[in-house]
């Protein structure tokens, strides 16, 4: 059965871009262990030669004509949704 360490949980949180408290890390460790313990049952299935299913209604490569569609929402309106903006652009903290 799979088990995860507190460091594993911190690693998963980092992969997921979630800054967890230590307390939450410990509680998720138990939950994730239990969930992995449950889903591990799939290991007993023989799936040799079975094709995986990612999409159920058999539509593949649905194309449309390459025509510009600006959409119903103006740029200004979209920028106004951002928590912070400056000079018609979305503002973020320093990256470098």
């Amino acid at each position, binding site marked *: 059965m799979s088990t995860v360490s507190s460091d594993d949980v911190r690693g998963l949180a980092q*992969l997921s871009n979630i800054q967890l408290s230590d307390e939450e890390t410990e509680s998720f460790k138990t939950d*994730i262990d239990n969930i992995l313990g449950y889903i591990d049952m799939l290991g007993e299935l023989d*799936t040799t030669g079975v094709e995986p299913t990612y999409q159920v209604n058999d539509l593949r490569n649905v194309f449309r004509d390459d025509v510009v569609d600006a959409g119903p929402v103006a740029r200004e309106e979209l920028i106004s949704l951002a*928590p*912070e903006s400056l000079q018609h652009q979305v503002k973020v903290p320093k*990256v470098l």
Partner: protein
Amino acid sequence: MITIAEIRERILRGETSARAEVEAALKRASDASGYHALLSTLDERALERADEIDARIKNGEDVGALAGVPFVAKDNYLVFGAPTTAAAKMLEDFVAPVQATVIECLEREGAICIGKSNLDAYAHGGSTENSAFGVTNNAYDMTKVAGGSSGGSAVVTALNVVPFALGSDTGGSIRQPASFNGVYGFKPTFGMTSRYGVVAMASSTDTMGCFAATAADAELVQSIMAGKDTKDHTTLDDYFTPQVQPPKALKIGLIKESMTDDVDPEVLARTREFADTLRALGHTVDDVELPMSKYALAIYYIVVPAEVSSNLARYDGVRYGLRADGAASLAELYGMSRDQGFMPENKRRIMIGSYVLSSGFYDAYFQQAAKARTLLIHQYEALFKSYDVLLTPTAPTPAFGIGENVDDPIKMYLADIMTVPPSLAGVPAISVPAGKSDAGLPIGVQLIAPAKQDALLFALAKQVEAA
């Protein structure tokens, strides 16, 4: 009980107006506020639209099949006139600049959205206890859960606040709360209804369906929502044609794996009685096996978290939604905003998704689940060669107590054990009211049909309803 046809006809005959119906629905919503089923009401926009419809009726215009009929949408549907929160802090103040395609379809036929209903945040859960804005109470017993994740929509339908309400169903989020609150709840074939403008959860199983007090009303609403949408490339051409005649004698399979000792005895009894009703109507009901049922929940809790982790990556505190204060770097801004904006169940699912998709575990979990999903689909296909419709209970128990399962994610997940398999296969399913427990709690049964045979489920549900 109020029905769509009744409201529409009274409006068209001039016995009432769209405004009066909307006002009455808003009053009922306010009277039912103790259940905490709604997160917001759209008073202003709803009344404006009602006046517009009344004016058009006066002018003798055709106002549509749902003219003046009030409804409620789950708060993960983008609707003009109120915020769309998905019941998460992340979107608490989010006012959508577009509407969901299915909302547009309903509005074109004159329907009027009067409110947005509570859900488990981002539709992650089976009880509506994971909402950032409080728990919704069951319509029949305030100490019990509403079910979920579309709990609020189920409760407002059961309380007759509106004749229909919209939900989204990824693994049972319409059917299970429908069962818990004694109403019809329909999950269409994957691709029958557009997902555009509904907060995405798991893109390979998300479907848009509804709750109604009668099978005919649910059918009417689905027929209006059905069809291809150029904004959702997984949608199918509109194949849905309601069946007026009752179905011919059907071969129905009662899935044995859903009738074990783990299931509540009263749920088993109501399901067997329902099978007897079907027999009395001339159908045959045989016990059948779907051995992959055993693995369905494990498949689901790999596939869905994987898709969730991807779909929820967009909530980063940058372009819209909650942005945490005091972040010194972009990485901190992401991490803090997502910590504050998501509920614990959201975080759990995102992290499980990151785990099953990470290199080293991808083959053992995600790829194995995708293959197991194929095996499950093959077993459905084999059953549907001999049977027209399959039957199970909708949920293993009636509504459980508020707080009863919150500390045990697996126990909570098990409430979806009957509804998850059809979701993974993309086939349609409906929860039909099938009586109550001795304690007075509703119990529902689930009817499942092959892909695109949605109309058959409604025909059968209508036949049972009339019996």
